[in-house]
């Protein structure tokens, strides 16, 4: 049986620990009540970190460009970039670069031709007879030995120039560009086409039904022992958390028909129902989704989260502080998901996370907001 995808739900996990180690992101959705968005939108647009231009690039280059002296020095040795090539992981040759480490996921044929040292990949080797069909080559380009003139490095250069010499489509994002947002001649010479990341797509929805963000009384995520009652309490919490997660996905989907307050579909067609929460009121609540696309650096996402968190903490809607959520989708074909966890695709390569900040009623408590983290990985992923 094929392994199943997994969802990890954490309470009180520091957002930084989820956001920072996840380098390859292509879609970021910020979802919050429209009332709240209107209160903070002016401030968030003018916030220094988010208003500076941030670009990612698409370019078609052979691998050898990466090891050319100029590029290597500017973007890898002294700078920091993330790059990911187009292609299907498990089938094509896929290359990625982050934190100075170049990873090549190669087919058997390409691996044998390239003549570089690697190991069998963790995933994608399930062919007949369990032969090793794919290999992963990891090169730390920041290593002091990675210089032109050194034997090992020249071997890599030769391989890139003569064997893995086909042009590859890359997405590229410079992580240092917020410090110096000047157009780079190296990229211009490579024919890279830029794309602005920080221009979001803002969608305000008609009123939707919102579930309760407070877990049912008595329910707990963990603990309580092995008694039936404790088992029941954990079950209730799990169901609640999955309900909230499902709802967040539906709300991010446009929102989906079934969560719109005016929806009255026959139960023959759908039995989905939102568990009523205290936010809802009679008419439901308008939501705003702010969507960013492109190759989005993790550091920038963290900045978005912190900015919104700060702005939200200073305003309150009605008698309670507002909630907001941030969903990030990783590239399906990335070689790694979080940190160094190998990533594959097979039936679905989803890797992404959702953070939900839930304000608590207790205003006296400084750490009032509770953060719920949902991390999803497909069946082929080492992240745990």
């Amino acid at each position, binding site marked *: 049986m094929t392994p199943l995808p997994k*969802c990890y739900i954490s309470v009180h996990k*520091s957002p930084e620990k989820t956001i920072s180690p996840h380098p390859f992101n*292509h879609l970021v959705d910020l979802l919050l009540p429209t009332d709240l968005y209107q209160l903070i939108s002016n401030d968030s647009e003018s916030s220094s970190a988010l208003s500076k231009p941030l670009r990612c690039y698409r370019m078609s280059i052979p691998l050898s460009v990466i090891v050319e002296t100029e590029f290597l020095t500017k973007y890898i040795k002294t700078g920091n970039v993330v790059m990911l090539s187009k292609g299907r992981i498990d089938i094509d040759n896929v290359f990625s670069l982050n934190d100075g480490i170049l990873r090549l996921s190669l087919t058997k044929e390409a691996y044998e031709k390239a003549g570089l040292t690697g190991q069998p990949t963790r995933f994608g080797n399930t062919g007949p007879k369990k032969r090793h069909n794919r290999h992963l080559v990891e090169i730390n380009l920041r290593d002091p030995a990675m210089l032109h003139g050194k034997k090992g490095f020249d071997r890599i250069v030769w391989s890139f120039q003569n064997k893995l010499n086909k042009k590859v489509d890359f997405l590229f994002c410079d992580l240092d560009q917020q410090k110096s947002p000047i157009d780079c001649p190296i990229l211009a010479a490579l024919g890279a086409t830029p794309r602005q990341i920080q221009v979001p797509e803002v969608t305000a929805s008609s009123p939707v039904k919102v579930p309760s963000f407070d877990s049912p009384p008595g329910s707990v995520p963990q603990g309580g022992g092995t008694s039936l009652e404790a088992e029941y309490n954990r079950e209730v919490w799990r169901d609640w958390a999955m309900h909230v997660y499902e709802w967040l996905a539906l709300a991010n989907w446009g929102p989906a028909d079934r969560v719109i307050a005016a929806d009255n579909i026959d139960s023959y*067609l759908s039995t989905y129902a939102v568990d009523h929460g205290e936010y809802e009121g009679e008419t439901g609540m308008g939501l705003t989704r702010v969507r960013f696309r492109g190759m989005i650096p993790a550091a920038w996402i963290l900045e978005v989260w912190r900015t919104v968190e700060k702005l939200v903490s200073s305003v309150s809607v009605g008698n309670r502080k507002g909630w907001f959520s941030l969903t990030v989708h990783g590239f399906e074909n990335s070689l790694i998901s979080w940190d160094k966890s190998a990533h594959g695709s097979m039936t679905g390569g989803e890797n992404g996370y959702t953070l939900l900040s839930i304000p608590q009623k207790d205003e006296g408590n400084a750490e009032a907001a509770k953060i719920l983290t949902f991390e999803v990985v497909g069946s082929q992923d080492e992240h745990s």
Partner: protein
Amino acid sequence: MEAEMIDVPPQSKKLQKSSQPLQRITIKSPEHSYSHLKMTFDPPLDPPGMVDAITWRTTLTNSLMQYLGVVGSAIRIDILHIEGDEAVLRLPTTDVVKFGAAVSGFVGTSEGRSVGFKTLGDSAFLMGLIGRAKKEHTWNGFGN
């Protein structure tokens, strides 16, 4: 036997500073799975229109009936969202394999057109489908 509790995972020093302990659970076999389907017509609908929920329901029931008989038609499918000729469906995880086989092999007729399904994605978690549905946009949309 003394019940050993696995309450709180080992914490790093940093975490212990915060007053609230980290709690974490893993969901491996959720109750529901989700499927993102596109209904295809031959010859194509002109103009490409909205396929309504009733049409989805009847066509899906037909496909499940054709492949699995009465057992198939009893699979509980919730239509969560419809956008043009695409729909997001929710079904019990235990029926995913049967469902997938039934819709991928289905050819039916509707008002003189042959009807089929194209699977755009399926996942045990609805959020996973969003990222997959939008991936192509990342590669396009450059140059502005």
